[in-house]
């Protein structure tokens, strides 16, 4: 930080405030120091943090983000110095590309290889080729949640989101990649395409669909579907179990055209001030009983075999929503980072859709 301060007045502006803030923060800490964690909102059982603090004497400073896109600039600018972050697949590849992550020393995190199914490490290779930087925390699919009492036939396909019958009864995801994924899969393209003509087609599909869409939402899909506000909604599989618990009329389906299989993984930042504690934290989160607690609290699929073995409720343990057999589905993909130009292309097209 000191070198940067000499460079530019602006750098001083942007760096001095956080430096003051973190300066205040680091003076306190547990008996064994602290670890600063940056995770998705509502993505952990708060009890597990207390348990970690009690067992290790390490104080956890916990912060939350809503989307990968909000998390990235905050971590990149160094505005706050985090140790452990939990981004998604494509964002991890962006962070690897920009040299922001530290390679993980698996010897210090024995629970990772022991408990986490090798399949998910294999899958992670699409964004972290050598499995060097990330340890899977949660995974899932994106699919359609529908209200059985409000549709005339079972929903099986993305194309049904363009059915005029369901006008004003459709909820779409309000994020660039997820919205385009739906249109791209519907048109039979890859969801990682940067081909301008394919993207133009996808954009036109989304514009065509817009009058039928009730609202573009993120977390509110959950509440609106539970309340019977809409018949069909695009949702993350992890939310499906929770919504079904609240409203038994809801059904989750992975559309036949294929979808996004995503993984959110723990990573340690290159500039992490407390690397050792970060390793201890991740190792703790990979413990079977802790992963189970988290799974039961957030209901997002866990890649942790030890945790799954501990689930008592057989219907959840073998749930096709929480633990689908992915070999049954075609055209499953994981997002990859599209580069700055690719991102800009998507963002501009999305703006065209939204302003139409």
């Amino acid at each position, binding site marked *: 930080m000191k070198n940067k301060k000499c460079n530019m007045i*602006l750098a001083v*502006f*942007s760096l001095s*405030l956080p430096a003051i803030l973190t300066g205040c923060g680091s003076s306190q800490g547990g008996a064994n120091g602290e670890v600063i964690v940056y995770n998705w909102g509502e993505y952990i059982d708060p009890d597990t943090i207390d348990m970690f603090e009690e067992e290790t004497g390490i104080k956890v400073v916990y912060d939350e983000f809503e*989307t990968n*896109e*909000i998390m*990235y*600039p905050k971590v990149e600018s160094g505005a706050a110095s985090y140790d452990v972050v939990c981004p998604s697949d494509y964002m991890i590849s962006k962070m690897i590309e920009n040299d922001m992550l530290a390679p993980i020393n698996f010897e210090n995190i024995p629970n990772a290889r022991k408990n986490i199914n090798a399949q998910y490490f294999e899958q992670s290779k699409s964004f972290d080729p050598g499995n060097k930087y990330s340890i899977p925390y949660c995974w899932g699919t994106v699919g359609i949640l529908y209200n059985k009492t409000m549709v005339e036939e079972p929903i099986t396909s993305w194309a049904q989101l363009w059915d005029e019958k369901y006008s*004003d009864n459709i909820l779409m995801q*309000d*994020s*660039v990649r997820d919205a385009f994924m739906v249109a791209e899969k519907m048109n039979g393209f890859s969801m990682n395409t940067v081909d301008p003509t394919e993207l133009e087609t996808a954009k036109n599909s989304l514009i065509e669909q*817009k009058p039928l*869409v*009730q*609202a*573009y*939402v993120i977390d509110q899909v959950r509440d*609106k579907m539970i*309340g*019977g*506000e809409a018949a069909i909604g695009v949702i993350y599989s992890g939310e499906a179990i929770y919504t079904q618990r609240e409203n038994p009329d809801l059904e989750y389906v992975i559309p036949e055209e294929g979808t996004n299989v995503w993984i959110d993984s723990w990573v340690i930042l290159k500039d992490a001030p407390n690397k050792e504690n970060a390793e201890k934290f991740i190792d703790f989160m990979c413990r079977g009983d802790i992963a189970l607690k988290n799974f039961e609290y957030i209901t997002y699929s866990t890649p942790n075999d030890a945790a799954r073995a501990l689930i008592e409720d057989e219907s959840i343990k073998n749930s096709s929503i929480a633990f689908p057999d992915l070999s049954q589905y075609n055209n499953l993909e994981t997002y990859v980072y599209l580069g700055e130009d690719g*991102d*800009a292309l998507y*963002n501009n097209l999305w*703006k*065209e859709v*939204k*302003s139409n």
Partner: protein
Amino acid sequence: MTSKNKWLSSPYILWSVMFIIIPLGMIFYYGLTDKTGAFTLENITAIATAEHAKALWLSLLLSIISTVICFLLAYPLAMILSNMKVNQHSFIILIFILPMWMNFLLRTLAWQTLLEKNGVINSILNFLHLPGMNIINTPYAIILGMVYNFLPFMVLPLYNVLSKIDENVLDASRDLGAGSVHTFFRIILPLSIPGIISGITMVFVPALTTFVISTLLGGSKILLIGNVIEQEFTQASNWHLGSGLSIVLMIFIILNMIASAIFDKEGEGSML
């Protein structure tokens, strides 16, 4: 004595430097440079692209409509309040300010719950066998949200100026044979212009820049300029474009302030 006074103002100077001057400087720095740090006007001229211009136009339209509605609702209310006895009007003012003790986001979310298809209002209408209303996720819902949230900012300044008008001036007007309509247009309205101006500014500016109301009540289907800027920062992480568009928006706010300054002068002129 004077040095003591200067010392007292230092927290405010520090505050405005830290949270007003520096952030403004950063907006101008980001808005006038590209990713490599080179000077460019591209982020400013980007307002001319179809999507941005449309969003700006829509924002201007909705905020002007909301301001007019707020004014039409607030003026009679402020007049009624200023004619009331002290105990009564302070109670009504309290009722008006009471919702502002609650978080702005929560109040807007509450409107969402009220207006939804299966929401509170439609359930009541349904129960009474009346046709339901479907304005959620339309521009009407956004205008409603703006009027609801910003109405107190129009009522309070109007009430302030109206209650300060000297009774004797009105008596004089009546003495000289002016009817109530005449008195209103020749005396009350001109005297209340400073309140009208600050009311309009306090409603128009937040309405023009809002992105929360359009997201929550417009279902993210209606893109206002505030939404575009928010998305540049949070989703596209293009701070340069976001800052450039913010500068354009600032120009509109400054225009509004210049207009109010001119009007204010005329208002004072007509008073003499």
